[in-house]
């Protein structure tokens, strides 16, 4: 089986960032009230995860060359935080249209553990073989995030009109919905290549 395709399917379905790895749960619960905002957040995450994957992968090679791998966590989080700031400035300057679409979501992504998660995963998992695989892993992970948050937003829009028992309102019913989604996504784990 083609390794490229494997990474993509693995990132989106089998090891979905939200429903099986539990990375990026905060925005998943927080920004999933409407489909439009969910889509905006999803696209911003794909974008940042792709760029962050490339930058952190390259930086890790430098860290290894300098024999200071133990600085990984500190370097990665600072790079991710700095990168998001730079992206915001660059987008604002050169592509105002894209900025007005993604702008509000960018600062929120700093605390999204999916971005740091993918950066660390890229240097420890199978995707560490090449820069291209790392990039692909980031984009596929972001796409998996987008799929999950879009489905969730669709369900929550429908749920607004339904009669939910008082203690279940808010987070609990969202988590139980996520549980049902995770059950159906668990079926993908039986895929074997």
């Amino acid at each position, binding site marked *: 089986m083609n390794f490229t395709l494997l990474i993509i399917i693995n990132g989106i379905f089998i090891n979905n960032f939200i429903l099986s790895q539990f990375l990026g749960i905060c925005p998943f619960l927080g920004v999933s009230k409407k489909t439009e905002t969910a889509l905006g957040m999803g696209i911003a995450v794909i974008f940042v995860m792709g760029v962050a994957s490339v930058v952190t992968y390259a930086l890790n090679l430098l860290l290894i060359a300098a024999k200071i791998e133990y600085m990984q*966590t500190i370097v990665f989080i600072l790079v991710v935080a700095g990168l998001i700031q730079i992206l915001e400035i660059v987008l604002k300057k050169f592509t105002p249209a894209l900025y007005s679409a993604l702008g509000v979501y960018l600062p929120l992504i700093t605390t999204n553990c999916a971005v740091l998660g993918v950066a660390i995963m890229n240097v420890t998992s199978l995707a560490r073989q090449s820069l291209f695989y790392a990039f692909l892993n980031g984009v596929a992970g972001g796409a998996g995030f987008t799929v999950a948050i879009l489905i969730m937003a669709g369900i929550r829009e429908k749920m607004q009109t339904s009669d939910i028992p008082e203690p279940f309102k808010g987070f609990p019913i969202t988590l139980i919905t996520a549980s049902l989604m995770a059950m159906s996504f668990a079926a993908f784990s039986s895929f074997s290549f």
Partner: protein
Amino acid sequence: MKNEKFRAVIEPFANGFVKNNPTFRLVLGTCPTLAVTTSAMNGITMGLATTFVLMCSNLLISLLRNIIPSKVRIPAYILIIATFVTVVDMTMKKFIPDLHATLGLYIPLIVVNCIIMARAESFANQNMPLPSVMDGLGVGLGFTLSITLISIVREFLGAGAFFGMTIPGLSDFAMSIFIMPAGAFLVFGFMIVCFNAAVKAFEKRRAQGGQAK
């Protein structure tokens, strides 16, 4: 006066368990709550590691609160937190390599645990060092208690065990769905329901008691 001082120290500690309970009340730090609660031992280790980072970062941020310019405070906090996480990561790798391997990716991810940032931003940068440490300890132990509870339930239902010891007779009827991702969401959701219902019932009783007076 002495009593007031004592209160300023003890109150942030006590608030961490119910009023500021990070898991059930504020719903922060959900990623580790869901990810590592497959067994009670994992839950308690993660909780204590987070508590350590939270206490240390609260202390340092509180000491430096008048020195760090407010414009660059967020990157400064991230740097402080990341340093302590690296300390925890390296210590665990050396002394408890098995648990370190199980928790894996989620140890460095303590950096982006929103509880730590939230306490730094809402408590440590406005308060004296001692109350800040107590706040870190209280919220950290509240977090530890909550995720240990979740993991005890999940381990009991999903593997028929308690802290790694299998319970005879029960392990044959283990429902493995509870240690799978779906079970994490389910148990967490129902625990919040129970916590909210209990807090509400308690408040209602207290309000009634107040009226009777």
